[in-house]
């Protein structure tokens, strides 16, 4: 596909998702109380979109992933939350 064709097919969808994301950050800011590592993880991943490197989707997924390699001793539960707690930057 040409860039024009990609824009014709996907621009409105991307625009809508971008505004949703902006509204989400506004909503978080307006809310009271503490946030947690998930917000920091999302902000870090967002910065990757400014890169001029290809494969941004892959980079975002990697940044939200547990990078460790050893199996853990016991399951903390069954679910996953979408970000890795260990990724939070030192305060």
């Amino acid at each position: 596909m040409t860039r024009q064709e990609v824009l014709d097919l996907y621009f409105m969808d991307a625009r809508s998702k971008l505004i949703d994301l902006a509204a989400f950050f506004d909503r978080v800011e307006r809310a009271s109380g503490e946030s947690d590592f998930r917000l920091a993880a999302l902000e870090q991943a967002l910065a990757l979109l400014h890169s001029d490197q290809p494969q941004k989707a892959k980079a975002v997924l990697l940044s939200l992933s547990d990078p460790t390699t050893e199996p853990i001793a016991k399951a903390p539960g069954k679910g996953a939350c979408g970000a890795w707690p260990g990724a939070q930057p030192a305060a």
Partner: protein
Amino acid sequence: MRYIEPHGHMVSRTTDDYEAMVTAGCAAVCEPAFWAGFDRSGVEGFHDYFCQLTDYEPKRAARFGLPHFCWLCINPKESEDVALAEDVLGIIPKFLDRPNVLGIGEIGLNKNTRNEMQILERHVDLAATHGQLILVHTPHLEDKLKGTRLILDVLKADSRIDPGRVIIDHCEEHTIERVLDAGFWAGITLYPESKTTPARAVDMYELYGQSNIWLNSACDWGRSDPLSVPKTALEMRRRGHSAATIDRLIFQNPARFMGQNPRFQLREGA
């Protein structure tokens, strides 16, 4: 249009879903054993589930002329209980002769624990011992990268395992290359929020090779869409892919993988 749903948890779906799938061109549905959304209290629950997958569900599908196949295992979410998992592993062999069983699946990891790894290895051994195809579930979200690496290590460590007879499912942009590069088949799951959208699935198909990939909906009791494979075919049409290319991805590829088991037979003319 014709397609195969290679990963659908039909026990969780309504009869209306069967009708909609067949209307959309579904030529076969394949159902891996999975977590019911709650932990079963014992091996008897799995016995009943395997009876449902090998007896009742194929009859329900047959009312719409739809061939139904299945895969058997204890899923990784319940594999943390090693004693229960060993009991379930003990009853699987007596179901392997049932005519709609394609192999062992969906095995894999959930939270990447030592117990899950132990039971994954036991399933791989079971599959190798009985010459079965393997369908692998990779973990969700932040656990997927690590889980995919660990699963590939386990599979590559067993010299009896032919990667061409194993599909690693729920691949995303950060895992699909390493799966394909290691010679395994890669599954892409179309699932709201936690997996991929049709547009991303087509991106991956275009980017990462087009031979050993299948698409599936993994429709189950969660928010999911049993028609997401044909909807992705529409996405491909919008991008200008030919009918032949679409047919290769959504029909011929899954038929080629599952056809490695001679039990995988479609209706004449499908």
